[in-house]
């Protein structure tokens, strides 16, 4: 199984990225996206930190083992789009 790294982007610039050094083994990028959404939901629901005031401006930047950027998953994707 490939390993995906979920870096947490909380503001622009190198200071604004919490780097994931461990990664998680998941079957494919679809599974990685679902994992990112599940972690984001749990984080929004339970986590208070001094650094992030608004979780909805955050995103997971998913990379592979070579450090190549694969996908960005905004925390706002945890909320379904409103149907007009």
């Amino acid at each position, binding site marked *: 199984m490939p390993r995906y790294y*979920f*870096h*947490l982007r*909380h503001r622009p610039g190198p200071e604004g990225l*919490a*780097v*994931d*050094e*461990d990664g998680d083994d998941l079957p494919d990028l679809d599974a990685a996206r679902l994992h990112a959404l599940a*972690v984001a939901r*749990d*984080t929004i629901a*339970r*986590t*208070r*930190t*001094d*650094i*992030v005031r608004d979780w909805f401006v955050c995103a*997971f930047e998913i990379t592979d083992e070579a450090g190549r950027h694969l996908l960005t998953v905004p925390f706002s994707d945890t909320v379904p789009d409103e149907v007009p």
Partner: protein
Amino acid sequence: MSQPSQAEIRNRLLRVLPKCDFALLAPHLQAMPTELRQVLITPQEPVRYLYFPESGFASITTQGSSGRVEIGLVGREGLVGASPLLLGADRTPFAHFIQGAGEVLCIDRAAFCAAVDESASLRRLLLRYVQIQLIQTAQTAFVNATYSLEVRLARWLLMCQDRTDGDELAITHEFLSLMLGAQRSSTTLAVQALEGYRLIRARRGRITVLDREALEAAADDGYGVPEAEYARLIEGA
């Protein structure tokens, strides 16, 4: 095997025992090295041995469907297995395993129970330690309900350092996340915040406490209550 002499013991409970109480336990104490992740007590299985940590520390954790969370920490100030056996239970729902490798003095359950049955003062001292464990657990509930992840991290690092020699703690982010009951990415954020305040320095698998006093200030009311009770009840401060 030679018996440990009380003067060379590092476990704080054993150190404060009157000579006669120490003599009840000493013939049954077996030194044993511990390694990371070693299980000392398995949930819902009869407790066969108790462990006085000499160095390193053990975590008490609860396992739920959403993962495992730490509910207690036992190092050289304590005794792993004290609560169930002293309170009349033969087992516990919680896992007890090594989070910081070191050494423990191991004692057989029957020998331990015979010693506390024989000496009221030994039982009283160890029950006071159980009281401190209750306070520590209550404090964890308070801190988890009240404070930000940074405060909780500061508290936990102080508790770890209390059970370690020196400023350097061997801890991975994965372990920290378990301790704090947080996602790994949130834990990384909290570590970065404390680094930003120059309280700690984090390298892969290792955290160095740079400014203990400032770390205590950052932990606010989260740290100190069980520690003060320990000093008062156990060490008579």
